[in-house]
């Protein structure tokens, strides 16, 4: 009964209990399966360093400044490591995608690193460059994952998907920036009329990002659930994972890269 990939048997007495037990089993199964792909130590360190970055908003003491700088720096470097490792260690992108990726990363980093007085902003301002690199890599990893899940092979749709994912990841920032400029227009000392006029395009881009996020999430998650066998099919009893047999999945040269065999595959 300690096999996480196996659904618990149905209990006729309670539908809610059944739903909860099924959900918990799914979670366990997802965790178990994704462990083969993930870089768990980096994921946990990343999450643990997030609270330290909150010190950026408490700029009242030099010690807090340095805490923010160290926390943000650690987070940024780990973000690059995590997604860089997933991108180059687990996934494989085409040459064209690599070209676009490097070009976009170079533009973003160039804009940041050539900004005058950036270094004098605060001790943590240097962390902006790796953070943006993390954003670019994050978008690339999500794109390759989605392309593989959706079985997208043609280059143009994959490039569009790449751009869409960068936009989707930047959507909260675009909306926040747009709202700040829209509201900041009332504080005429801080926001010039020209800057305030940018709030509409930013909010519009944020809106497009929201739509793309919903669309990509729905389609990709549905496909992922189908691959993972979480979609209920008619006439299935429910005691075993549905469609989760190795025979159902097509073989691919990339499969060994996605899911290397390890001794730990034999579960205790």
């Amino acid at each position, binding site marked *: 009964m300690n096999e996480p990939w196996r659904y618990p048997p149905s209990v006729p007495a309670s539908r809610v209990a059944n739903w909860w037990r099924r959900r918990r089993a799914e979670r366990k199964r997802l965790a178990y399966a994704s462990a*083969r792909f993930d870089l768990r130590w980096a994921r946990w360190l990343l999450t643990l360093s997030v609270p330290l970055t909150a010190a950026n908003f408490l700029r009242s003491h030099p010690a807090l400044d340095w805490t923010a700088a160290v926390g943000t720096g650690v987070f940024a470097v780990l973000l690059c490591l995590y997604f860089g490792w997933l991108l180059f260690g687990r996934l494989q992108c085409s040459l064209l995608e690599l070209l676009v990726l490097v070009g976009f990363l170079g533009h973003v980093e160039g804009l940041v690193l050539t900004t005058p007085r950036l270094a*004098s902003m605060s001790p943590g301002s240097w962390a902006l460059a790796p953070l943006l690199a993390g954003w670019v890599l994050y978008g690339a990893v999500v794109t390759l994952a989605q392309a593989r899940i959706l079985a997208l092979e043609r280059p143009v749709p994959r490039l569009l998907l790449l751009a869409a994912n960068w936009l989707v990841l930047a959507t909260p920032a675009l909306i926040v920036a747009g709202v700040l400029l829209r509201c900041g227009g009332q504080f005429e*000392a801080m926001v010039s009329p020209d800057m305030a006029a940018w709030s509409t395009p930013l909010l519009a881009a944020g809106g497009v990002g929201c739509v793309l996020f919903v669309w990509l999430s729905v389609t990709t998650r549905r496909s992922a659930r189908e691959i993972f066998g979480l979609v209920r099919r008619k006439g299935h009893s429910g005691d075993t*994972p549905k469609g989760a047999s190795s025979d159902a999945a097509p073989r691919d040269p990339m499969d060994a890269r996605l899911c290397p065999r390890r001794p730990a*595959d*034999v*579960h205790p």
Partner: protein
Amino acid sequence: MVPSGPQTAPPAPDPREALAAWYLRRRHRGVWLLPLTAALVVFVGLLFLRGMAGDPQTNLRASRAALLALVPPDVPTGENAADDYALADKARVAYVQAPGSLHPYDSPKADSSRFDNPAVQTHVANNAAAIQHLYAGAAKTRCNWGVDYSLGYARPGYLSQQDDNTWLLCVHARVAAHAGDHKAAAKSCEASYKLAEHVSATPLLYCANRFSTHVECADNVVQSIVTWDTPTTLDDLAVYRKAVRQRRDPQAMAARILAGDKAFGLYTVDAVAAGAIRPRGLTESLDRLAPGKGASLLYGSERQSLRAVIDEMAASVSRGEWLTRAQARDLVARHQTGPATLALEAMSAYAWNFESFAQSEERARTIDAGLAFLQFRVTYGRDAKLLDELVPKFLAAVPTGVFHAAPLRLTVDPRGVARTDLSTGKQSWYNSGTIRIYALGPNGKDDKGYSRDGDDGHFSQHPSDDTVFRVPPMKTSAPGEKTPGKPHRVLPHEKTSAPAEKTP
């Protein structure tokens, strides 16, 4: 439950399952999105600001040179008025204030009975040496306060001392006029005007602001002397007219202050952003532009907007146009390329102070016309019906206002002048038939000679802003004495506060 049986292998994994599972399981990534979003917001801000970010070290060299060009030349020891003012400051004896009594410096416009107080008279007598030093300083034309310009925009230390020196001269003028010595009173008034001019020698808005305050204080003293201790000889009136006719020239003053403030302001912004100095006093808000502060990227837009709006304001001043505060805000909005807090604060202060300069000149014209009106009265034993009657014997021409070129006007107010009892706050009216000689003021409307000050009984809540000099009628009345006649008009705020009539 711990499995006790033999180890069992999971179903053979679909390699794409791992990827799908990773994609579906996104809780950690949701948390990472928070700092990533903050970084992207900063990135968006960076895209807006990076185009105007400048190098403070490069700008600092140019702005330091521009500032040092303003440093006044050294003045030989015997010719420097600042030395006499320093001696006066040392010789000045503080007023011993009785408990519950008012300080005479707080009420230079009070009625003359205040200056009968022996404590006030003793104070003036004890400060005779200080007053002589102030006279000696006022007689000199050159004044170098020795301000260290390299410290940037900061309030000069001498200003508060000169405030006290001005109040002392004003109180001395009131005491002397009440004693009938109008020549000594006029001399103190003249010294006050000269001291105000010397205070503004440093081309900073701080100093110009004190200039306006000192000149207004001296103007109020002349008005109070005419109201309470009216000079009755042509000679006395002539010395007052000579004292009031100091050079004020608001346009030149505004141009000088703008040039000085631009040099001081840009140097201070550059030096703070380059980490060369730490801001002091009222400019501490600049500290956010210093290196290591989060807002240091705003330096470029702040500097650019400050320079542009000062240049345009200087151009409008040279054309003789006085910007209102609303127009000053529009000016900032026109030149703003990003955050412009410094420019907005500065423009608001400039507009307010430049209005004060212009009003000061307008006040000088009305006082001069009022004193000429009194000279006419002393000469002919009657009042002039129109200001035209004073031309050409007492006035070369009827003066005009500064804000609007309309000639000064004259009206007789049957209500008189308000007096507020400072201890009880009650108002009483006296001097029915007061003659008001007035200009239209900044709003350009004829408010029948009513100004914003408390002598017209409605303080600042009423929109009247005429610049007025009040000449007492030939037959004066004491405060509290019932004045004949009715007010020539009822002010809006009085309509609401008037008690309702009883109906049978």
